[in-house]
């Protein structure tokens, strides 16, 4: 079943040419064939159902949850995250805000709602993933505009920047190792430059995303956790200060861009 050598040489030559033109050009044909059919549409529906389902000891829905624009306002809420909330006096990302609403409004147990925020191998989506996907879709087309008025929000940005460049672990990797240059790729995957507006806007604006290799929608919280796994660091926790700080750094760099999530990724 071996193909002639000529074809391999042509493929290699074509790949080199594609590299010069655009680093992710090698997959253009693949993405064309994939079309725009994004299975995240199912997860959007599931997220809305979770929002409207009465749960917990209080047997209420999340409809009174305040995502920053007032109780129950979901349209355009996601693009303002991460943001400071007066009721917790803390900067929160969407995931930790949802956990807050589940525990305070629905009266659910903190340990159980945070036990498994992200799908493991063999799972088919979690409540947090579905809610985040629906809420991102509720901001589709909106301008990314994270709040930076409060001093704690600006402190989070500064902290996020420090963590972004922090090199550690046996491989000396930081976020910056892969994400401070443009037009680079790891193996064949294009790497966004998250220190630039363009790179950050493209990236922040397309997560959560349906990850076709996993058959799941993944959130930004998961994306960061999996980056650190590959950085050989310990495991980043959902709703942790480092996670929210890095998200603030990305979101502020992305400000002015357009929210297109849920995206469709390899």
């Amino acid at each position, binding site marked *: 079943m071996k193909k002639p050598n000529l074809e391999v040489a042509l493929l290699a030559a074509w790949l080199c040419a594609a590299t010069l033109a655009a680093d992710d050009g090698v997959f253009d044909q693949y993405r064309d064939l994939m079309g725009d059919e994004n*299975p995240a549409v*199912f997860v959007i529906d599931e997220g809305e159902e979770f929002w409207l389902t009465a749960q917990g000891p209080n047997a209420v829905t999340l409809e009174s949850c305040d995502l920053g624009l007032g109780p129950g306002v979901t349209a355009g809420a996601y693009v303002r995250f991460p943001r400071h909330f007066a009721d917790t006096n803390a900067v929160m990302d969407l995931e930790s805000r949802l956990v807050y609403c589940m525990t305070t409004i629905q009266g659910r147990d903190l340990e159980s709602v945070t036990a498994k925020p992200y799908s493991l*191998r*063999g799972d088919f*989506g979690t409540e947090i993933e579905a809610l985040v996907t629906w809420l991102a879709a509720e901001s589709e087309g909106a301008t990314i505009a994270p709040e930076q008025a409060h001093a704690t929000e600006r402190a989070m940005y500064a902290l996020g920047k420090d963590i972004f460049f922090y090199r550690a672990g046996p491989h000396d990797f930081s976020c910056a190792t892969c994400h401070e240059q443009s037009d680079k790729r790891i193996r064949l995957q294009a790497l966004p430059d998250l220190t630039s507006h363009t790179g950050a806007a493209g990236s922040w604006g397309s997560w959560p995303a349906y990850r076709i290799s996993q*058959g799941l929608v993944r959130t930004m919280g998961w994306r960061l956790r999996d980056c650190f796994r590959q950085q050989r660091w310990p495991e980043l926790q959902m709703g942790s200060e480092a996670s929210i700080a890095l998200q603030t750094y990305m979101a502020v760099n992305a400000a002015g861009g357009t929210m297109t999530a849920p995206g469709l990724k390899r």
Partner: protein
Amino acid sequence: MAGRIKIRAQKKGVVTEVKALMRHPMETGMRKDQAGEPIPAHFITQVSVLHGEQPVMQGHWGAAVSANPFLGVRFAGGEPGDTVRVVWTDNQGGTGEGETTIR
């Protein structure tokens, strides 16, 4: 939450183009979960596309069809407003169906 289908049916010249996206894990039975336990095979074995009550395509699938399967077919005829249905069954006895009208 298996069972859902998103369908689009569009008249394009003399043919109707149907695109369907199904919600299904399509487990091969060869993967293991995080704890190392095998994940049982769970995949759609049969899928049919119907124009009204008329079958226009029937697919037999193995576990090698991707998770959240996509299916695109074209059939002759069909008029805007006609019903197009997609129905599946899987190896565990689950079923799913979705319906739309031709645009």
